[in-house]
């Protein structure tokens, strides 16, 4: 037996060794990554980001060179720290904390020590860099905004965060990424692709040549330029008109779905979010919780549409055959739609659709809505039929435009009311506020503008989009595909006539322009806020929608002004001015322009703030 001990031990040890090797080499693949960390230095070359042009070929966004000071912590040896601090204008404490932060990230990989030097700083540092081991300058390109408007359209650029890196392997710490707006939407097009060089290193971090003769190396590819559908002048003018107000403007070219202007107010100069002051400025914008300049109201703000929704009520009434253009309802400054339930109105008389639209008669559209719902045996079927028509206008759903922000809005259906009023305890009159765009109907300004475009087109719309062209690429097919609504084209005639009447004898007559044949509709939207569970009524929002010219619509527009009293007070003049600017290239109604530019709603917004403060106090 004694002769078997050694062979046995040899066999056991061999099996143990082979299993361990199998584990290290085949099963556990972390060592491959670690070996790359050890031996490969990856040098990135950052390409220039694609330029952004407006629809007329005007350059909006270009690039400027920027220089980051990089540090490789473990190579920092024997440097005159004080001289460096003085040169870079940082304190010793800042220096130490930056260096230790970089060391924690990785002692052997480069970290950004000081981002985005000014040209003067760069010039000063470049000469002296050789005195400071472990520091070097990395060139990158930063955005250079040629205009000071359109911040909400462009979005901004920032360094990637951990989440970006985790979710997309392209990004490495220190890379830049587009956030919001077209910078985010067209990130992959705009960013190009960075060049990579793999350099083999030895254990002293000395470079000993390219890895495998450079077969894995790539060169940087410049990002592709994009052209937006935005009319830069219109955009700038809109932002100017919206100063000291909150809200938004969306202008669309109905024939193509191209977004001509997308104004968000308040806004900010896109240049604020570039350079060394970026994070300070960003924090300021981010912390403005009342004006919310970073919040894209035109895309993400959900409001009751108010009276412009009557256009849709009328169209659905015609399509469902419950009214025709001669149908009249009598109104005596309102009507009872149930026992003790009164809906007020502005005027009294017998109106047909044409006049009711011009006068924005609540009674007419409430009665029409009632007929639509009651056409069906069950109110559930009625509301679902109504819902289906509205869906065909892109309401209650994401429109599918090419911007990364937005909300669905809301169009209620029978399920919704069943939840609120179980056992069918609801009918047309329960939901009567829907008829005039209050109630449970919620839309974004963008959706509202799209409805106007569909009306201008008499029944169809193209998915609104902001991209006109991409270098080397085609734009998404869905932007050139017609979306047909469920409303027959012939039914649009009386509604459009009514909208035209608005400017002649109706609620929009004060902003009419002789040279322009406009169609529009005012809106005054009740709104409330809840503070500590208590409901407060705030000053109404001012809304106006329009398209022009009537016979060959070139622009459809929706204007939404928060707490702007009523439709014709702020939204209507702004709409009129925007249309003048776009179609006439000059402002005919200088009186309106002066009033709009000088007017401010700041006192209204202060009231809201005051309300919050009071509520806060009473709580204490």
């Amino acid at each position, binding site marked *: 037996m004694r002769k078997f001990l*050694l062979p046995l031990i040899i066999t056991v040890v*061999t099996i143990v060794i082979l299993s*361990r090797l199998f584990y290290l080499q085949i099963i556990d693949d972390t060592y491959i990554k670690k070996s790359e960390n050890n031996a490969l230095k990856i040098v990135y070359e950052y390409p220039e980001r694609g330029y952004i042009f407006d629809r007329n070929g005007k350059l909006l966004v270009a690039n400027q060179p920027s220089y980051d000071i990089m540090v490789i912590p473990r190579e920092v040896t024997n440097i005159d720290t004080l001289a460096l601090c003085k040169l870079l204008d940082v304190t010793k404490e800042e220096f130490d904390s930056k260096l230790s932060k970089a060391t924690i990230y990785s002692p052997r990989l480069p970290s950004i020590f000081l981002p985005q030097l000014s040209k003067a700083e760069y010039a000063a540092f470049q000469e002296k860099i050789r005195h400071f081991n472990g520091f070097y300058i990395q060139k990158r390109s930063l955005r250079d905004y040629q205009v000071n408007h359109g911040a909400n359209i462009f979005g901004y650029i920032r360094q990637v965060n951990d989440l970006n890196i985790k979710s997309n392997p392209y990004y490495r710490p220190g890379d830049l990424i587009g956030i919001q707006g077209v910078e985010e939407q067209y990130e992959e097009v705009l960013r190009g692709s960075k060049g990579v060089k793999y350099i083999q290193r030895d254990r002293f971090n000395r470079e000993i040549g390219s890895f495998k003769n450079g077969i894995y190396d790539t060169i940087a590819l410049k990002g592709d330029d994009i052209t937006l559908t935005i009319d830069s002048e219109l955009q700038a003018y809109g932002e100017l008109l919206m100063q000291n107000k909150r809200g938004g403007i969306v202008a669309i070219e109905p024939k193509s779905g191209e977004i001509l202007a997308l104004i968000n107010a308040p806004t900010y100069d896109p240049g604020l979010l570039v350079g060394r002051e970026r994070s300070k400025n960003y924090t300021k914008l981010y912390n403005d919780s009342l004006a919310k300049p970073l919040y894209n109201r035109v895309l993400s703000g959900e409001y009751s549409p108010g009276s412009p929704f009557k256009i849709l009520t009328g169209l659905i009434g015609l399509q469902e055959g419950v009214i025709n253009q001669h149908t009249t309802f009598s109104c005596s400054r309102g009507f009872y739609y149930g026992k003790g339930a009164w809906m007020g109105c502005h005027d009294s008389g017998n109106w047909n659709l044409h006049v009711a639209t011009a006068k924005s008669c609540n009674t007419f559209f409430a009665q029409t809505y009632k007929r639509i719902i009651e056409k069906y045996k069950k109110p559930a079927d009625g509301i679902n039929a109504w819902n289906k028509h509205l869906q065909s206008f892109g309401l209650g759903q994401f429109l599918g435009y090419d911007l990364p922000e937005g909300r669905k809005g809301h169009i209620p259906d029978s399920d919704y009311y069943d939840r609120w009023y179980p056992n069918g305890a609801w009918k047309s009159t329960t939901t009567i506020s829907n008829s005039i765009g209050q109630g449970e109907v919620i839309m974004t300004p963008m959706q509202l503008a799209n409805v106007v475009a569909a009306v201008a087109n008499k029944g169809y719309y193209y998915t609104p989009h902001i991209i006109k062209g991409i270098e080397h690429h085609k734009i998404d097919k869905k932007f050139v595909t017609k979306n047909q609504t469920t409303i027959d084209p012939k039914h649009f005639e009386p509604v459009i006539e009514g909208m035209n009447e608005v400017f002649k004898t109706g609620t929009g007559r004060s902003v009419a322009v002789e040279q322009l044949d406009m169609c529009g509709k005012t809106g005054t939207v009740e709104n409330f806020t809840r503070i500590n569970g208590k409901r407060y009524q705030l000053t109404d929002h001012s809304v106006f929608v329009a398209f022009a010219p009537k016979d060959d619509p070139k622009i459809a527009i929706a204007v939404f002004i928060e707490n702007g009293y009523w439709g014709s007070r702020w939204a209507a003049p702004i709409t009129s001015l925007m249309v003048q600017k776009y179609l006439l290239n000059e402002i005919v109604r200088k009186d309106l322009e002066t009033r709009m530019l000088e007017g401010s709603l700041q006192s209204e917004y202060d009231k809201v703030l005051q309300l919050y403060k009071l509520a806060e106090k009473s709580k204490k």
Partner: protein
Amino acid sequence: MRSVSVQKNIDWLTVLLYFLLVIAGWFTIYSASLPAEPTSMFDLNQIYGRQLIFIILTFPIIILILSIDAKFYEKYALIFYIIGLLSIIGLFFFGKSVKGQTNWYSIAGFGIQPSEFVKTTTALLLAKYLSDNQGHLNTFKEQLVALTIIAIPTLLILKHDTGSAMLFASLIFVLYREGLPSWYLWTGFITVVLFIAALVVKPAIIIATIIIIASLHFYFNKSINRNPFIYIILAIFTSGFVFSVDYVYDNVLEPHQKDRINVLLGENVNLQAEGYNLNQSKIAIGSGNWTGTGFLEGTQTKGGFVPEQHTDYIFTTVGEEWGFAGASVVIVLFVFLFFRLIYLAENQKKRFNRVYGYCVVSFLFIHFAFNITMLIGLFPTIGVPLPFFSYGGSSLIAFTLLLFIFLKLDANKINEW
């Protein structure tokens, strides 16, 4: 019968395995030590150039060994042994210090490490003693003499080089094969297991385990004569040992030895300091995958991340550049050699030959096992070369000597009866 030539009787299979390993070793050293600007294979300024010289130098040595009369080795075993010991004692006076270890002589620019050769001389004397004695190691005197032959060089080397000294423990396999009572082996085995266990597990748990095992043994082995006192003494003795491990660990082991044990256990390891070697070694081997990066293409090898890569850590280059496939081939070559040598040893008619052959296998195997398990994190770091593979004239020539003396003895067996 002297006319029967060595060429005809030498075990060519072993010779073939030997050359395969030496050549594979040289190519690996070439890859591990190639400078950025490749030079001639014979460039003496380069590690691979010198290793090639050493390999060429083994040819006359092999011829010399094979030409000398086989009885020569047995006859003068004691003299070799004494020369061996003197060469180690001489280190105290003439030795050259490299990295804190004084185990080199520097002669004409080449370092000679006498401890490598002492393995051969010790094996020869041990074989001679057992062969002359013809006992079965069952008397205390025999055991004492045999263990003393091993202990003297071990203790002398221990002063300079703990790792090399530990290798002599492998001769316990030889003694066991020749009749040493098995409790020696068990004692050694249990000591090692307890030592490791005491470092990893709480003493209370180990003692509880010991008591349970002792009780079960006492209860189930009714047929043997059980003296409860022996059980109690054994239990107390082992418990005492367990408690003394901490003391040994804290007071006897040197800081770098403690580090090596900690690294293995993965406790508070700084990968830039004491944990660096093992970590880099595992990275290099682990990045090999199935077939490796290819000859001369290993990034870790080229970048020199693994320290001592051409000597003790040479196998990491095999792992990285040839992957699991290449590493397995090398391991299989070694294991094949071991089994062949055991087979040859068992077939010797003379006890001297058999014992010596067993010594050769034991030494080769313990080097192989310590070296490779050290690289893959299964054994503490001790500086042990991989036979025939690692760079170094002393080690290559000493292993060649060790092996070919046995091949000469083996080739000569036909002449003996």
